[in-house]
């Protein structure tokens, strides 16, 4: 439940300038995720790319040093971006700026919070800093988004304080198949749980390794308690609309835009496709003449690293 100020407002005089306020409550943190619904969050590595993203109608940008496709090629350890680079992007745009911290690296998260980023992504795309523990996200005022491949993982992240879940997909591949697999797994299990009776919910909680109260909440509401976005491998307007029709509430597009031949029109088309995801005539219109998408990697081809396996 949201942490609310207990102080009685009625006791204050009407001239008082200072109204009691609570920052960083669950409602405030999940609230920003609500505002990003139906939108596209784009990975950017420079202020210029951030402007292209904002011009194209992105609801937020993810500031990072290398897009996942390059992290995949370069290898080595991938870390939080340089604060100077993040500040450059914050200065370039008016929309929310997100940034990534390594799994379990709560000091990177502290630094990102100090920089005033609007959302921290505790991300498997970076090299994990802790092989057992994720960040205690309740300890922060800034909200967190975390990846998940299945419902159990999503609920464990929510129980740690995540205020937005994104299906992981396989970042940097331009291949939507894993994103679809993860969305279907999460949403399929949610649908099954709504049909379960009391004793079955205990079993679901055990199987999912997730807190029972969250499983019971899903049985009641039929949805995650936080927004569910889709990420990892989306490269075309049709990919974005596919994720939305499957039940995602927004999409993250990483390498898919700035690794394509002509990023600006593709970015705009993906934004339009995300809004008009159920209208094939508009999807056909916006999909025309976008140039070559990023090349992409097939899942049967050799992946040097599988990002989706990171996170516990």
């Amino acid at each position, binding site marked *: 439940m949201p942490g609310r100020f207990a102080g009685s407002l009625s006791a204050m005089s009407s001239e008082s*300038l200072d109204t009691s*306020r609570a920052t960083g409550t669950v409602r*405030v943190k999940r*609230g920003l995720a609500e505002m990003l619904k*139906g939108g596209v969050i784009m990975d950017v590595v420079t202020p210029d790319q951030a402007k292209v993203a904002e011009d194209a109608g992105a609801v937020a940008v993810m500031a990072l040093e290398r897009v996942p496709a390059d992290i995949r090629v370069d290898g080595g350890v991938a870390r939080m971006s340089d604060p100077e680079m993040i500040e450059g992007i914050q200065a370039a745009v008016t929309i*929310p700026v997100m940034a990534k911290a390594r799994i379990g690296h709560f000091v990177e998260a502290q630094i990102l919070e100090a920089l005033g980023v609007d959302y921290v992504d505790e991300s498997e795309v970076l090299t994990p800093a802790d092989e057992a523990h994720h960040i205690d996200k309740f300890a922060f005022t800034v909200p967190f988004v975390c990846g998940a491949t299945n419902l159990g993982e999503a609920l464990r992240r929510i129980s740690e304080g995540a205020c937005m879940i994104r299906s992981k997909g396989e970042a940097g591949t331009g291949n939507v198949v894993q994103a679809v697999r993860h969305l279907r797994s999460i949403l399929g299990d949610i649908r099954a749980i709504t049909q379960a009776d009391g004793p079955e919910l205990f079993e679901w909680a055990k199987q999912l390794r997730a807190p029972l109260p969250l499983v019971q909440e899903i049985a009641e509401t039929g949805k995650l308690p936080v927004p569910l976005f889709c990420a990892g491998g989306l490269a075309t307007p049709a990919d974005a609309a596919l994720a939305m029709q499957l039940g995602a509430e927004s999409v993250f597009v990483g390498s898919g835009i700035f690794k394509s031949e002509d990023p600006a029109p593709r970015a705009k088309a993906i934004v339009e496709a995300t809004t008009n995801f159920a209208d094939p005539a508009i999807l056909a219109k916006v999909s025309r003449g976008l140039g070559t998408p990023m090349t992409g990697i097939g899942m049967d081809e050799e992946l040097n690293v599988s990002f989706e396996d990171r996170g516990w």
Partner: protein
Amino acid sequence: MLALQGAFASHIQALRSIGVAAVEVRTPAQLEDVDALVMPGGESTTMSFLLESNALFDPIAQRLNQAMPVFGTCAGMILLAKQILDGRNDQRCFGAIDIDVRRNAFGRQVDSFEADLNVAGFDHPIDAVFIRAPQVDRVGDSVTVLAEIDGRPVLCRQGSTMVAAFHPELSDDRRLHQLFLDVIAEERSNT
């Protein structure tokens, strides 16, 4: 319910819980079927782009000229203002209410907050959630300020237009949505 982007689903849920037949509006044809419009929170730059690409800007402006009742929250308030400060240069707004609005004036997400807010005519405060909220910098003479925080207006009305800098759809209190229904009824009886 303008459903281009943002928190439209929560608004629809809120409206339906008080008996309103709320529908999503993404196209000019869908706009023709509604009596009143709610513009949700979200990113105002994104919504400006989509209002143009979905060919909704001019039809909405025309309906607003004919006094269609409208309720804008956060980004919706920005879109309904006369002038946007700290926005993008190409960002258009409807000028449906005589206020100037400054984007993100309360700061970044770490400064977002919820507070008990006294509203004119309500017997107890509402739980108002402010997310990277805009601020009203100037209020015209014909605008009524219904609530303020630190002396800054956060809930205003001018005729059939109502705007809030915060998010009534994120709390369980339905009094502001009900107030908008009262505005609609009042405007109807006036014509």
